């Protein structure tokens, strides 16, 4: 066959790819538990196959292509990458956005928060939370929720759909749109599109409120367990607005130490590398970011995401969500706000905030404006930071005088939470590891711990069935004591 002869001999060395980067992610969550000499859990490693190398694909590409291209990084929150890259490129083209551009982008972003949080809570987490972590796997999925709690499941599905509609009308498509471009947007909303979204938004706000009540009720019913599960203290970071308000689209960086003291505040993210740096470890492809001022990844790791954002902001600028924030922070003398399962509660507060923010924007005539794009003095460097559904997302580019990207660095939310996830699993392993055997119960609890962080890993985002896990138990001298692999159907086998 001539085709074979003509195929490039070393395609792996070439730049372009035709595979979806997502398919590079392993299907299993791989966890190694290391014991010490006294057989106590010493360390836990969650092995993540990161989207390594994506930065290389971006190099050489023209800067205006990047906001569209980077969406292929992730099938789960493409809008976040789209917007973070656009914000970086705003800086490159020297643009100060028009009110229309900023508001349409915010609308897109809140649509993404709404759909992502709804998907995560209702489709992925509610089966565990409603039926219990040890419930029958056949029931523990969205189909089971539909059967047992049809009203809750239906609202979850419709909330997600609404968020996707917001994305479609702002980005042009439900997934992988092109709406946001360097310096602005390529479309605003028409009167009809606005009316279409306005029709249902009050219902979405109401259902989001109910979702907050639901997770609150679950906390109340299982107070001790919810507070203790996978609990650990950590430093934390997120963006906040200049007045300290929660702002998921733009702001300065705020970092708080585990003891509650401030490490830095309103830090201009365009120099993020002065406060955050990354460590590499031999056993993981994923990097370990940490606060530079604290010296090492062991001392300086932190967590990001909904829990951090709700706890770190001074207030939420929409009334219903702010009310819920206060309740959350006061609940059980503040203990819920430090609980790993508190991520779910915080996530629902953010979903309510997103719904309220969408409502406010839909009442703002600027979203129908026609001043879409601006530009100013061209710059070489661009940094875009956004609070994606899963946490702080950093995009950083250098663009040469020919408009080509010559360097790219991305730090995604799941990378920020890398060490935090290891910690949560370690705590859970200590709580649930019994002797030298990996039990079904341990697997279930590891799954729930990982899920709290809503990592963008394929193993964690299967909507049906259980999280496929591969858990290994090692003695202090490195010998393997046990290894269990569980597939999506919940079937385990011992290796």
């Amino acid at each position: 066959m001539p085709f074979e002869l003509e195929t490039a001999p070393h395609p792996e060395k070439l730049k372009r790819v035709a595979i979806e980067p997502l398919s590079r992610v392993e299907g299993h969550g791989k966890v190694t538990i290391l014991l010490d000499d006294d057989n106590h859990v010493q360390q836990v490693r969650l092995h993540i196959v990161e989207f390594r190398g994506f930065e290389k694909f971006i190099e050489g590409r023209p800067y205006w292509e990047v906001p569209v291209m980077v969406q292929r990084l992730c099938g789960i929150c493409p809008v976040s990458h789209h917007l973070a890259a656009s914000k970086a490129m705003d800086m490159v083209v020297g643009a100060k956005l028009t009110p229309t551009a900023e508001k349409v982008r915010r609308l897109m972003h809140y649509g993404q928060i709404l759909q992502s949080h709804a998907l995560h809570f209702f489709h992925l987490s509610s089966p565990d939370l409603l039926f219990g972590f040890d419930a029958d796997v056949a029931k523990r999925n969205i189909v089971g929720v539909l059967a047992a709690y049809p009203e809750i499941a239906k609202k979850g599905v419709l909330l997600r759909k609404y968020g996707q509609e917001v994305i479609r009308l702002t980005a042009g498509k439900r997934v992988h749109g092109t709406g946001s471009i360097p310096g602005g947007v390529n479309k605003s909303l028409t009167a009809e599109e606005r009316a279409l979204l306005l029709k249902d938004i009050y219902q979405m706000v109401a259902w989001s409120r109910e979702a907050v009540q639901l997770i609150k009720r679950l906390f109340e019913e299982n107070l001790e367990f919810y507070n203790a599960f996978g609990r650990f203290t950590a430093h934390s970071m997120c963006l906040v607005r200049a007045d300290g308000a929660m702002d998921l689209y733009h702001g300065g960086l705020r970092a708080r130490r585990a003891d509650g003291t401030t490490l830095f505040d309103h830090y201009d993210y365009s120099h993020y590398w002065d406060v955050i740096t990354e460590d590499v470890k031999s056993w993981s492809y994923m990097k370990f970011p940490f606060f530079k001022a604290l010296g090492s990844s062991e001392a300086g790791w932190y967590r990001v995401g909904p829990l951090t954002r709700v706890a770190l902001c001074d207030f939420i600028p929409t009334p219903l969500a702010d009310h819920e924030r206060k309740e959350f922070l006061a609940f059980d003398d503040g203990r819920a706000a430090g609980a790993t399962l508190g991520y779910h509660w915080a996530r629902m507060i953010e979903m309510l905030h997103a719904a309220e923010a969408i409502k406010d924007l839909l009442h703002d005539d600027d979203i129908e404006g026609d001043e879409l794009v601006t530009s100013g003095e061209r710059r070489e460097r661009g940094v875009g930071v956004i609070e994606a559904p899963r946490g702080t997302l950093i995009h950083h580019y250098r663009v040469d005088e020919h408009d080509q990207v010559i360097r790219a660095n991305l730090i995604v939310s799941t990378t920020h939470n890398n060490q935090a996830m290891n910690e949560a699993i370690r705590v859970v392993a200590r709580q649930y590891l019994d002797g030298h055997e990996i039990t079904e119960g341990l697997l279930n609890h590891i799954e729930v711990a990982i899920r709290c962080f809503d990592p963008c890993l394929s193993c964690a985002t299967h909507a049906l069935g259980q999280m496929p896990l591969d858990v290994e138990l090692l003695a202090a001298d490195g010998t393997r004591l046990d290894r269990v692999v569980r597939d999506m159907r919940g079937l385990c086998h011992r290796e």
Partner: protein
Amino acid sequence: MSDQNTFLLDGEEIAFTPGQTIMQAARAAGKYIPHLCWHPEFKPHGSCKLCTVKVNGRFASACTTAAAAGLEVENRTAELDDKRRTMLQLLFIEGNHFCPSCEKSGNCLLQATAYELEMLTPHFDHFYPDRPVDASHPDVMLDFNRCILCSLCVQASELVDKKCVFVMGGRGMKGRKIIINSESGRLADTDFSVDDRAASICPVGVILKKRVGFAVPYGQRTYDKAPVSIVETEAAK
């Protein structure tokens, strides 16, 4: 035959004026024959073979075959469209076409033709050729990853712009390519201008005006509104 100067295209009578090709006559009559390297403003290049039809039972390129009285021409038959689909697949795997992040998406003749002919997969193994981007020019970028060697830029630059910025050079699968006619081989070192006809002729996403990619939203791009067969016949009217 009712008239001296007619032929049959898929059973329909098409009038032509002497000197017209089958492609030209079909287009004038509002009929779409798939094509990539042919452009109404330029002389046919006959290289892509997408326009292959059957003339009295034999394969021929519609863009280079003269219309003649009484010919029986098959065009949109399952057999021919199957072959065209395969030729499209070959074009896709020969270059590096990554539609999802290509700014020409929605305005690209190759992509639109692939939709028209219901090409669903590339089918063959990708070649992944190494084709550099030339971004040296201040206003225009060249991304040769997507070149289908139609030669339209060569003709436009030579015949309309009178500049000869692009030349078809080299031989063979890897060698044949568009060469920039300057000592350095860079576009910046030619007298090419963004206002040249050649700057807007490329049917795919090679010759691109800088800094405007993705400015047109979904729904408003050329082939969002109608498939290429309709767009082409409308344009001919």
